[in-house]
């Protein structure tokens, strides 16, 4: 059974038809990159998958369960879907450790000691064990994003959604974040990324989904799709970003 399934998903912002019948099927362990011009609906698609945005037609299932924007549903979803944002969205009034421990203690009802152990393990994983007591503002963008990844991982999600997570970073900091993602991919984590990092999509990703005008325009094996695009739109897009 697929982990994430989208069936004919339509999304409107008022009169604006943003997603025009998206079909997508993602298996556990897959690394799927969603690429496309801005305004093509990539981020909206991602935000529909974890219930941050409503969709008007069609269906999305996650691990067999239907996705809606009902508060209770979203909270259940949070247990299996982690989300990383472009702007990190760390909680600035909490230390790195507290950021990571918050959801495990409140939502999963773990003890402080248990949550701290998890937080330390996750920080170790992203290479920031020594930053446990720092405040986010003291960290570089790349470090903040790695903390955000650790925070999501602490809830042991089945799938991680990444919304242009390197777009707000200085170029020299992009590598450290991608390295963490690559390591997660190797460990078998399911990743769905909206990204402009074509090299990453090709080398680490299994599959690329090219979105254009609210539709899945072309999709397929990442190496094949990026080296021999079929449609003019994708050819143009690849030409523009590479």
């Amino acid at each position, binding site marked *: 059974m697929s982990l994430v399934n989208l069936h004919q998903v339509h999304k409107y912002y008022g009169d604006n038809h943003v997603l025009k019948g998206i079909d997508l099927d993602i298996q556990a362990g897959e690394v799927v990159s969603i690429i496309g011009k801005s305004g093509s609906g990539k981020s909206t698609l991602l935000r529909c998958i974890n219930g941050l945005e409503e969709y008007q037609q069609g269906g999305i299932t996650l691990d067999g369960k239907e996705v809606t924007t009902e508060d209770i549903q979203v909270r259940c979803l949070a247990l299996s879907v982690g989300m990383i944002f472009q702007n990190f*969205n760390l909680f600035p009034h909490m230390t790195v450790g507290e950021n990571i421990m*918050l959801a495990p203690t409140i939502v999963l009802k773990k003890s402080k000691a248990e949550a701290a152990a998890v937080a330390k393990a996750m920080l170790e994983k992203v290479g920031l064990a020594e930053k446990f007591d720092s405040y986010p503002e003291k960290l570089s963008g790349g470090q903040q994003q790695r903390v955000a990844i650790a925070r999501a991982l602490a809830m042991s999600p089945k799938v991680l959604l990444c919304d242009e997570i390197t777009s707000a970073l200085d170029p020299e900091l992009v590598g450290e974040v991608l390295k963490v993602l690559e390591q997660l991919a190797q460990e078998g984590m399911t990743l769905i990324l909206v990204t402009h990092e074509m090299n990453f999509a090709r080398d680490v990703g299994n599959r690329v989904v090219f979105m254009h005008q609210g539709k899945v325009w072309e999709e397929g094996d990442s190496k094949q799709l990026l080296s021999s695009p079929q449609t003019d739109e994708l050819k143009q897009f690849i030409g523009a970003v590479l």
Partner: protein
Amino acid sequence: MIQFSNYDIISNLLFATQWTILLSLAAFVGGTSVALALTAARLTRNSLVQKCVHLYVELFQGTPLLMQMFLCFFGLSMLGYEISAWSAAILSLTLFTSAFLVEIWRGCIDTLPKGQWEASRCLGLSFLQTLRFIILPQAIRVALAPTVGFSVQVVKGTALASIIGFVELTKVGTMLNNATFEPFKVFALVALIYFALCYPLSLYSKHLEKKFHVSR
């Protein structure tokens, strides 16, 4: 006619200042409590509740405090509710203060990035948990300086209570002026006392603003 020495004038004014302070405190505490309740109501995202809060804010921000006091004092007695000048003053100042604080606090909550709500939601926190652990701790820091700053308006607003006969600083000033015919001296002293009450609050507000601006 009784003679008033400068000492008499000052000691009478200082005595009356206690009532001004007490009225300010009562209005501020009352206003804060009502504003808290209204802010919570507004955050529920129920559109009917939000409209009611909006109407409340517009009503009390858009009419003079003096009219609100008259309505509380004279209006309620006409309706058969005996109300003292003290209660009417507290009631109207509470309504007035809360209407402004709700707006100030809404602004503070709105300045927090939407991503804070989203990140919290994605981690599985409920609406109330998000408010308690993510939004309020940050909003309070932002709100502290403007709230203390607004308390200056509350202190000055208490002067209007003199018109419905509540004996506080301004009222005693008027009475002393009637007895001494030295308006310049008496009202300068009254103004000076108000300034002495308000200026430290302004300074404290500025201090808070700096303090929290740096840490963010």
